[in-house]
C-alpha cells in the first residue's frame, strides 16, 4: 500500500485559492487585480530528489535577477512536486501570496542530465509571460547557466510587466463623431493606416474590425487645411460613440489686434506671414497711441511704432492649444507733438527687440488669444527722446501686450 502522498504545496494553495473570486475577463476589468500586490512570488520546485540541490540556486538566481530588474520579490519555500504543472503551481502561489506574478524554478533529472525551467506567470489571466528552459551536466558547471537562465527570464518578465488582459472581441462597429465634416478617419498611423471612412453629417460608422475590449485603438483624422491628429481609444464592451477631437487649422497667415501696457490709449496691429505653416514666421506690427495724462496742462503726444522681425514657435506641437513663440526684430518710433512754441515737433527713436515671448491660446477655430512680453533696447538716437539702454517705464520692466489673433 502506497503511503498517502502528503498534500502538496500546490494543493494547499489551490484550496485557499478557491475562496478567491474568479477573474472576469473582458473590457478594462481585471480579475480581482485590486487584491494582487505588485510583487513576484518565487518558489523552487524539484521533480526528483537529486534535482533539489539545483532548484534552490535557480530560485535564488531568479529572486536576485527579478529584484535587479525592478520587481518586488518574495521567496517561498520549495518542495518536491512531480504532479502539478508550473501554471497550476503559479496560480496557487499567486493566490496564496496575493502576488501579481508567480515565478516557478523547476529542476529535474533527465537520466543523468539536469534539466531546468524558469517561468513567470501573470496572475491576471494565468498567462506565461517569460520562461527559459535548458539542460546541463548536474555539477558546478551548471550554476552559471542557471544564473543566465534567471537573467533572461527576469528581462523578459520586466518587459511584460505592463500587460493587460486581452478583452473580449468587440461585437459592434465603432462609431465616431467629429465636428470636422469631410475629415478622413483611419485606423493606425502613417502609411500602414487603414482607412475607416469619411465624416458625414458629423458622424462615421466604421467597418467592422476585430478589436478587443480594452485594447488600444489608434485613430488618425486628416482634413485639408488642418493638422492631422492621432487619438487613442480603448473601447469597451458597450457600444458608445467615440468623440474625435477637433482638428487645429493650419495657418499660413495671421493678424492680431492688441493693447499694451505703457500704451493703453492706443492699439497694436500685427501681421504674420509663415515661412513654414504654424512654425516660423516674419512679422510686421504697428502701434499707435496717445501719451496723455488727463490733467489740465497735458496736451496729447502721438506715438507710432513700426516693428519688423521674425519669430518661431517652440517646443509644443503645431496642433497644441497652448503655444509659445519667441521673436526678435527692430522698430522705429515716430513721435509727434503739437505745442506751437516747440521748435521740433517730430522725433524718431529706434529700438532693438532683443527678445519677445508670445504666449498663445489657440482655439480649434480661427481665433486665438495672446499675451506678449517684450524687452526692447533703445538705440538712443539723437533724433529721439529715449536714452540708449533697456527701455524702462513706471510699471513692469517689460512691455506687455494682450489681444486676439485670427489665422487663415
Amino acid at each position, binding site marked *: 500500500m502506497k503511503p498517502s502522498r502528503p498534500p502538496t504545496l500546490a494543493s494547499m494553495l489551490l484550496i485557499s485559492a478557491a475562496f478567491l473570486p474568479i477573474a472576469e475577463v473582458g473590457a478594462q476589468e481585471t480579475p480581482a487585480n485590486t487584491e494582487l500586490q505588485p510583487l513576484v512570488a518565487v518558489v523552487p520546485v524539484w521533480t526528483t530528489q537529486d534535482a533539489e540541490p539545483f532548484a534552490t540556486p535557480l530560485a535564488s538566481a531568479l529572486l536576485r535577477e527579478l529584484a535587479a530588474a525592478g520587481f518586488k520579490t518574495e521567496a517561498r519555500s520549495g518542495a518536491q512536486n512531480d504532479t502539478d504543472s508550473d501554471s497550476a503551481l503559479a496560480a496557487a502561489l499567486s493566490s496564496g501570496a496575493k502576488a501579481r506574478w508567480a515565478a516557478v524554478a523547476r529542476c529535474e533529472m533527465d537520466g543523468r542530465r539536469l534539466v531546468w525551467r524558469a517561468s513567470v506567470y501573470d496572475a491576471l489571466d494565468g498567462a506565461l509571460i517569460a520562461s527559459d528552459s535548458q539542460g546541463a551536466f548536474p555539477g558546478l558547471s551548471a550554476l552559471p547557466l542557471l544564473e543566465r537562465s534567471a537573467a533572461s527570464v527576469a528581462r523578459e518578465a520586466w518587459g511584460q510587466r505592463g500587460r493587460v488582459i486581452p478583452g473580449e472581441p468587440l461585437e459592434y462597429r465603432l462609431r465616431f463623431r467629429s465636428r470636422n465634416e469631410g475629415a478622413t478617419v483611419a485606423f493606425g498611423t502613417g502609411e500602414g493606416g487603414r482607412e475607416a471612412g469619411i465624416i458625414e453629417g458629423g458622424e462615421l460608422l466604421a467597418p467592422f474590425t476585430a478589436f478587443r475590449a480594452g485594447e488600444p485603438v489608434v485613430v488618425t483624422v486628416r482634413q485639408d487645411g488642418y493638422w492631422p491628429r492621432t487619438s487613442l481609444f480603448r473601447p469597451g464592451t458597450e457600444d458608445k460613440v467615440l468623440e474625435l477631437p477637433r482638428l487645429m487649422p493650419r495657418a499660413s497667415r495671421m493678424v492680431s489686434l492688441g493693447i499694451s501696457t505703457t500704451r493703453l490709449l492706443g492699439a497694436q496691429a500685427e501681421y504674420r506671414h509663415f515661412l513654414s505653416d504654424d512654425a516660423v514666421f516674419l512679422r510686421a506690427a504697428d502701434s499707435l497711441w496717445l*501719451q496723455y495724462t488727463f490733467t489740465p*496742462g497735458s496736451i496729447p503726444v502721438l506715438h507710432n511704432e513700426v516693428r519688423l522681425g521674425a519669430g518661431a514657435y517652440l517646443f509644443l506641437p503645431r496642433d497644441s492649444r497652448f503655444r509659445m513663440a519667441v521673436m526678435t526684430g527692430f522698430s522705429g518710433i515716430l513721435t509727434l507733438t503739437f505745442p506751437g512754441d516747440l521748435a521740433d515737433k517730430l522725433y524718431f527713436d529706434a529700438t532693438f527687440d532683443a527678445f519677445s515671448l508670445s504666449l498663445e491660446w489657440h482655439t480649434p477655430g480661427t481665433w486665438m488669444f495672446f499675451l506678449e512680453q517684450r524687452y526692447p533696447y533703445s538705440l538712443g538716437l539723437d533724433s529721439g527722446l529715449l536714452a540708449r539702454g533697456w527701455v524702462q517705464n513706471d510699471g513692469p520692466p517689460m512691455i506687455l501686450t494682450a489681444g486676439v489673433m485670427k489665422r487663415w
Partner: protein
Amino acid sequence: MVTNTLRRRAAAAALALFCAGFLSTCDFLTSDIFPSWFSYVEARVDLRSILKAQGLGDLATVEAVEFAYWNQGGIDYSKVLVFAVGNGTNKLILLDPHNLRFIYAETNSVFSRSMASTTIGFLCGKQIMSPINFSLSAAPDWSNPDRVRVFRVGIDPSGTNYSVDPNSSQQGRFEEYPNAWGTSTSSVIRDFDALAGMYNFLDAENVNGYSVLGQRDLYPYMGFASSFASSADFTSSGTVFDKTTIPIPVKTGPFRMDEGLAWLTSGGPVAFVRGNRNTNRLVRYRWGTGDFTNGTQAESVDDIPFEDTDEYRVLSFDASGTWWFVFDRRTGYLYKLRTWWR
C-alpha cells in the same frame, strides 16, 4: 445650461473687476516708455550747445533756471534766466520766454544761483541786469548770494523788492527795498523757528501773500512754508515757520520733500518726493494745511510721476504756477513745461 451661463457671467465680472483694479490708478493709464512729463512740454532748447558756444566748455553745469516776468510800457521783456558755470566762468544766459530761443549772455564773477525778477531788472547774485539794454547794476551786498531769495511786489516797473538773506542755517535777514533798491526800508533778523532748528532756506515768493519756504535740516528733512499777510508782517519780529503770536502767518507743513527740491507756486508748494522703485513724484501741497506743533503733514492736492534717473533734473517752478523747467543732462536739452494743474 444654467451652469454655463453662470460661468460666463462670473468670468465677465472677474474680468471687469480685474480691469477696474488695473485702471483705477491714473498712473497705469499714463505710464509710458517716454518721459511721463512729455505731454506737458511747451518748448525746448539745446542748452548744452548754447553753453558751449558761450565758451563754458563741455563740462558746463546748469545751476539754476528762473522764469522772470518783466513788463514796461506795455512791452513784455520777460525772459527765462539761466545761470551756468563752466571753464571757471559764471554766466547768465537769457532765453526767449516762449520758445527758449537764445537772446543774450553775460559773464560776471558775482553772478550766482540766486535769480529773480526785481523792480529794475533781473537779479543774478550781486548784479541786476536791465531787461531792456542788458546793462548791469549792483545789487545789495548779500551775505549769502547763493541762497538769498528775492521777489517783487507790485506792477512793473514800480513796486517794492523783498529779500530773505540767510546769514546762517538758523536765521535769515528779512528786508524790504524800495523800487530803485539802495538802502533797505525795513530789515529784521528772524529765527526760522523757536527751537533753534537749522533749515535749508529754499524760496521766497509773492504767492499766497509773502511766502517763504525752507527744509528742516533734521531727519526726516521735511519742508515748511509760511505766508505772511502783509509786508509789515513779513518784516516783523518773531520766528518764521512756527510763529504762534500775532501776526500769525499761514503755515503749510510739514510736508515730504527730497533732494532739497521744492518751490513756491500760487497753486501751493511743490516738492520732489522720492519713492520706491520708479515711483518718484512731484507733489503739490495745499496752502495752510499741516501742523508744525504735532507734526501732522500737509495735505497733498495732486502729484505726477517723475522718472527715477540721473538724467532729468527739475530746476524750477514759476511762481505763478504756469511753467516749470527740466534739464536733460544726457542730451543737454532744457525743457519748458506747463504745470499739470492749470
